């Protein structure tokens, strides 16, 4: 399969700090990949570079064959990349349904004067958008909670609304930043299944940042490990699990040698 996203030598600096250092990687269309790494390794910064929130100082980011590193966030979203956030960032004072409708913004074609006259095209589009938002709400198992303010929803439901909101823009690539953070084992397992189903049914490519190794190892087809902004390993879950460099990055040199020993 072809690569849907490819980055080449991406570097992002904040003053003297190199958050992402000469990072090149690619993900295949329809795959589920993960980026892991210790805290501060530059994973979220890398997400921000992809979505256009940051502009990398060097390097290229290519999505579906087009360079996107210089685009604004909203343009990137229109091209088909959406994300969720590490600490949930819903529009807290809008209802769940409105959140999803906002997510749909980039797919709505009518112009504001049409809204003012209220022509048929506008009314049809609004009706369809509402129906689709209801569908998405149902898809994430939140049927009937559409009128709740986002901030009043329980934590797990907020996570799911965030995913529904991201899906509303009909993305080709979905970036999930620690989707299972703060969830218990059962909830994470459910979410893992959900992500896998999503990919299987709609063919969306998924890229995760995740700390929960059970989730990462269970779901990813490819794992990339970042440490101090650079890639230190890449491969299938099995390969990563046994990679001494990865263990070192997570647990320190001594532990790494010890584990290697016990593994042998």
């Amino acid at each position, binding site marked *: 399969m072809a690569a849907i996203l490819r980055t080449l030598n991406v570097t992002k600096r904040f003053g003297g700090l190199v958050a992402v250092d000469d990072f090149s990687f690619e993900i295949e269309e329809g795959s589920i990949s993960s980026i892991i790494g210790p805290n501060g390794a530059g994973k979220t910064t890398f997400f921000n570079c992809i979505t256009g929130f940051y502009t990398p100082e060097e390097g290229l980011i290519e999505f579906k064959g087009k360079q996107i590193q210089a685009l604004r966030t909203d343009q990137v979203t229109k091209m088909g990349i959406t994300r969720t956030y590490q600490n949930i960032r819903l529009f807290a004072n809008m209802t769940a349904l*409105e959140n999803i409708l906002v997510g749909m*913004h980039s797919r709505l074609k009518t112009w504001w004067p049409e809204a003012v006259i209220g022509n048929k095209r506008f009314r049809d589009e609004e009706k369809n958008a509402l129906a689709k938002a209801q569908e998405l709400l149902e898809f994430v198992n939140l049927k009937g909670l559409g009128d709740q303010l986002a901030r009043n929803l329980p934590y797990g439901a907020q996570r799911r609304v965030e995913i529904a909101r991201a899906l509303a823009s009909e993305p080709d690539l979905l970036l999930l930043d620690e989707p299972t953070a703060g969830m218990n084992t059962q909830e994470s397992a459910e979410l893992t299944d959900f992500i896998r189903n999503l990919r299987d049914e709609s063919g969306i490519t998924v890229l995760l940042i995740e700390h929960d190794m059970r989730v990462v190892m269970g779901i990813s087809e490819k794992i990339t490990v970042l440490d101090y902004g650079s890639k230190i390993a890449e491969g299938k879950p099995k390969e990563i699990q046994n990679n001494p460099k990865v263990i070192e990055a997570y647990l320190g040199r001594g532990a790494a040698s010890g584990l290697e020993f016990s593994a042998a």
Partner: protein
Amino acid sequence: MKIKDGIRAGFIALGILIYLDLIGLPKTFGSSMVVTFAVIVFLFSLFSLRTKPAEAPAPLPSVLVNGLIIGVITGLGFALITFGFASLQAQDVKVTDVFAQISHENIEALTGVDKVALREGQSVVPGLTKLAGYFILAGVLGGVITQFPASKVLHIGDEEKRSSARYWLMLALPFLLFAFFLALRIEGVDIGGSEENSFGLVLIYACIAAALFAVREVKAGVHKIGFSALIVALVLVIPQLTDLKQNAILGAVMIFVIMGIGLNIVVGFAGLLDLGYVAFFAVGAYTYALISSPESYIVVNLPWFEGLNFWAGLPIAVLLGAAAGIMLGIPVLRMRGDYLAIVTLGFGEIIRLLLLNLRDYTGGPGGILEIPSPNLFGLDLGNPKGILYLGMAFAVIVTFFTIRLRDSSLGRAWVALREDEDVAEAMGINLVAIKLMAFASGAAFAALGGTLYAARQVNIFPDNFALDVSINVLSLIIIGGIGSIEGVVLGSIALIGLPEILRSVDEYRIVAFGALLVIMMILRPEGFLPSTRRARELHEADLDSPAEFEG
């Protein structure tokens, strides 16, 4: 219900009455204020003694005692103070040097003893006894009423299903008030006892406010449409019945409604705090003045140009207003919150200073004179009634426009922008476009208001476009309820209309505003008629939302 509570409520009520007395309501409204004050005591007693809908009413003896306490404290307290003032005046001490509003008219309104009689030694005690009697009666009555279950429908903030009593009360109130107003117009009927018929205007305000509340209470569907149509008819009739001065004031209210709805888009929907809103009002007014007045620079210096009429000037002024909005919008695109507020504040001042100093073009402090007034098919609208109708028509158009935008994806994008700018952008919203759209539409409405203002005033001066206009518009949307269009109407009446009637208490106007704002922010931070979203933001957290504990 302890006696302590009654004493406390009594003193609070007394404080409010003294405040109203000192700012001069009795002087303005005459003897009707005795009854009005008694009604205030009654309401105070009722609201402090009633229980929550779910609770049983407090036992009758305790309620009676507390009602009596409230009545006695207010009655005796108020009577004593008035007695003090009256005896000072009887000895020719000038009370007005210290309390500007405590004049002979005040004493006459409260006791029925006029200046001459007071000098001659007529006692004010009978009048004051009557007044205290009213207050005590009102206090006790308020307490008794709490024993009836129906009193609970007045319980503010109860989230229970609206009982039919409250529903019908809301529906009937505007019509009752209107009927009362009509009664005032009948020759020989003197209910208000006031000069200039200010009382009638207050009634009109109350009528409109009650109607706004009622429109909310009515359930959606045929009833709502029918009721709204009635209200519209009523509003259309009002200018025919009111006198010149009343129409002029209502016209000013309308101009502020138009501006309030515009600023509401910028501040209420998109969350962009704009403190220089008056700039666009000025752009509208001066644009229309410059291209229409025979005295203006353009018309004087272009021999072939005779000046446009109102209907040709209006679109140009509105478009230029929108352009000014975009002009302000572009440099502040990257700014948020406080920074934005400061920059817009500066922008407002720059425009005013330009108007003041570009003497050759704007006439400087001398302003632009002889701005033509609008007419429609030969019908001159350059009178208060015409301006009021025009203002109402514009307000309706602007409201329609705003509601349509609010309910579109643009409206949702604005709210998303207010909530979280970064995430809004990540949802594919072009921040530049929607921010400029908010500024432009807000500015266009302000320019529309400005054009109408220029046509109404005939002569305009830079002083008409000072910072206080921005503050007023902002205050009125806060008081009415941020994000709510009905709220803007109510806020305009409260902030622009009421002070206009209380011209005689002008010096206390700002104090009254301040007090009102502080009280509002404590008791009802979402404003009088908040948008449903806003009300939920501020109050839903207090309720035990079931979703909070599920899943």
